[in-house]
């Protein structure tokens, strides 16, 4: 039986699945229901001076029928009184001593930080998360991403928190920076025990084209918000990996951003996350999604012979290299499995218009063109195929198109080896 017990920067939980600081972690009653559903931890909705929210607050982007493939919000931190929140934190921790309750914080002055940290720990917090990420509203008031975008300020506030705290401190980083590394390093210099990322990405989700107003509409206007949900996962993965592989970083990461299922979670862990946090998928589908996340992760670990999470955390990091170190002589071509081909020819038009014009409805000169008894199986001119992957990406039948490595007789050679050592490169394909 694989062991899912988690330790992220000293914060322990029965499994690595935590609710991110957001509406699903807004109150004690919610978080307790989430723990009952199987969540291992929760980062409480950010506490600070209670704010007033607008209505409406959320927007979703529909991509070819998939609703809310990307999501955004213009809500702020908690709008509930600190007393209420602390009472509920205390109550939750008492009822669920083994689950991780991390309290997210965002205040301004040193005194405010000292005070709110003490009250959080008194209430039973297992850890703190400093919200240096919110990209709307709070940053106009000098908090949130206004802090996260300034490594110096980040480091200073982090050091205050670490000074006042007796529990681990995570710094939640904003992705609204050109390079995440200096910001992760600043948190580390401030003494953070770990970082969590990403918070939301500055965004305008859509425009109401009939009323000429941004969405989500607040009367006759709106503002930029924070983008999250499945669509942001690739951006988050890159930021997590950038820190995880950096030689001077080396502190734990709680991965966040577009995690919708166990597979996404595994990807974050393989790139160095020791816990994962989820917001949007829970907002869209409810706490119950965690059941499949746990089961899927366990099955994955069994399949690969992993007994503890440590064995998989960071396992894909070594494969992340510079472009100049990729083998230019590695060659693949697309192959179509005629047996499973349904003849939609989506690959034909994709290659014709979007790639290298080497998939055809039929082999030139082959009038009859029947493969496996089927008249519409496309033909690939392998001598022209650059192995780009586009056809495989558009094919609606899983496994029908495969990219197959070909033996071309050339020894591996990277661009750097070519430039510096004169390594021989294979002739270019499709570059005429």
């Amino acid at each position, binding site marked *: 039986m694989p062991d899912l017990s988690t330790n992220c920067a000293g914060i322990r939980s029965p499994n690595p699945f935590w609710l991110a600081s957001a509406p699903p972690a807004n109150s004690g009653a919610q978080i307790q229901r989430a723990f009952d559903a199987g969540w291992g931890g929760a980062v409480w909705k950010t506490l600070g001076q209670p704010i007033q929210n607008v209505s409406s607050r959320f927007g979703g982007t529909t991509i*070819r*029928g998939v609703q809310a493939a990307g999501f955004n919000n213009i809500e702020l931190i908690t709008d509930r009184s600190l007393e209420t929140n602390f009472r509920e934190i205390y109550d939750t921790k008492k009822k669920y001593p083994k689950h991780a309750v991390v309290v997210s914080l965002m205040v301004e002055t040193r005194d405010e930080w000292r005070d709110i940290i003490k009250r959080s720990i008194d209430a039973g917090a297992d850890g703190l998360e400093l919200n240096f990420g919110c990209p709307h509203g709070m940053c106009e008031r000098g908090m949130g991403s206004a802090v996260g975008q300034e490594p110096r300020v980040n480091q200073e506030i982090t050091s205050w928190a670490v000074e006042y705290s007796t529990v681990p401190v995570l710094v939640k980083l904003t992705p609204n920076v050109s390079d995440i590394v200096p910001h992760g390093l600043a948190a580390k210099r401030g003494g953070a025990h770990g970082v969590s990322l990403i918070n939301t990405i500055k965004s305008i989700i859509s425009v109401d084209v009939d009323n000429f107003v941004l969405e989500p509409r607040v009367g006759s206007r709106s503002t930029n918000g924070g983008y999250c949900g499945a669509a942001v996962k690739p951006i988050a993965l890159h930021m997590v990996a950038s820190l995880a592989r950096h030689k001077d970083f080396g502190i734990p990461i709680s991965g966040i951003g577009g995690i919708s299922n166990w597979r996404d979670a595994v990807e974050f862990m393989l790139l160095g996350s020791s816990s994962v946090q989820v917001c949007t998928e829970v907002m869209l589908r409810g706490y119950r999604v965690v059941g499949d996340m746990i089961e899927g992760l366990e099955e994955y670990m069994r399949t690969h012979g992993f007994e503890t999470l440590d064995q998989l955390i960071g396992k894909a990091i070594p494969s992340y290299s510079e472009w100049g170190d990729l083998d230019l002589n590695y060659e693949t071509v697309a192959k179509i499995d005629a047996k499973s081909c*349904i*003849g*939609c*020819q*989506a690959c*034909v*038009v994709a290659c014709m218009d979007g790639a290298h014009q080497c998939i055809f*409805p039929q082999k030139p000169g082959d009038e009859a063109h029947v493969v496996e008894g089927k008249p*519409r199986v496309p033909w690939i001119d392998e001598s022209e195929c650059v192995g780009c992957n586009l056809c495989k990406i558009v094919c*609606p*039948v899983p496994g029908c198109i495969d990219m197959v490595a070909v033996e071309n007789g050339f020894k591996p050679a990277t661009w750097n080896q070519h430039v510096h050592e004169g390594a021989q490169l294979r002739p270019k394909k499709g570059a005429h």
Partner: protein
Amino acid sequence: MPSRLDAERSEVVFEDYKGAYTPAQAVLEANRCIYCSDAPCVQACPTHIEIPEFIRKISTGNVKGAARTIFEANILGTSCARVCPVEVLCVGDCVYNELGVPPIQIGKLQRYATDAALAGGERFFEAGTESGKRVALIGGGPASLACAHELRRLGHRCTIFEKRAVLGGLNTTGIAPHKLKADTSVEEVDWILGIGGIDVRASVEVGKDVALEALEREHDAVFFGAGLGADTLMGIPGEELAGVEGAVAWIEKMKLGRVATGEVKRCVVVGGGNTAIDVVREARTLGIPEVTMVYRGTEPKMPGYAHEWKAALGQGVRAEWQTLPVAFEGDASGAGVKRVKCLRVDDAKRPIAGSEVTLEADLVLLAIGQSKLGELLASLAGIEIARGVVVTDAAGRTGRKKWFAGGDAKNGGKEVVNAAAEGMAAARAIHAFLAGVGNA
């Protein structure tokens, strides 16, 4: 617009067999479409509607554009969406069948787009610059309507001669009301005629009220789209009894007027084609308790579509296979048909001696085919008629100058979509012909 049709016609009780999509259903279904390249469904449609294109437009909310794409290829897209046997046309060739996944419901999506366009009073096409040419069209069914509309886009004036009081041909008088009711057909006709410049001479029978020679003289071209004729009779004793009727004639009565079914306990339908299947389903829907199809062939070899027959079975219809009626009998009172005397037949459809069976029936509907109308043109030298059907080239040209044909009158009886395709093709051939004449 107040309907010119009887509001209490028998057909009004029928419910849609394939209901209309709600917007949510349409978008969900549209988003499933793979958007194939050189799509098999397009090839399977006789009018070659750009199906993936119109479906994509539904998915993006461009429903009007979807309708334009449909009508560009097939001006009868509204009725075709309902009446086409999509299972053996576009839907039958959807690549999802290959994947073992339910195919895209193209007919229902087409209905969604075209219904919205008609309801919204959208008009997509304008008449072309007047050419000064005049074309006569014989018959006001799908073939002639498609031909006339296309001719108007090309600038030629049209006159449709229709022997019935209403236009639409079998769309109005023959299609099973669970697919298409007469009022929808008439609305479609009005919408098509909305292009302007198409004169309609209803209740005028060509060959009787107007001479062929006069038509030819007074017009620059003539399109023959008269469809098929009356129901074929069996030529067996008792056929003249009350209660023995042609199926297509009975359907017309049901669609435009009223048929009395209250007293009918048992109905026998003779035939195994699609008209026979339609009529057994119609008889059941109108409340006739026992409906039996009598067909001289076997179930696997019946010409009617298997999917339609399955639906008929679902309505509790019975069948007598390999059975041939030899006489209809009444009783002494002369009140009408009471029994159908039959013989069983062998695999070669030859009667088997001594195999008599008697079926009780108080209504018998003959669905064994319709007569062909080609002979109407027999007096015109140069027009070839083969077994009642007018012979043309692929574009619809007959062997006589000025004369073109399409639809059931030319193909011997296919579907509405074939009539539409042939009507539009003939219009382009007529246009080419008229252009040539103009230059001469």
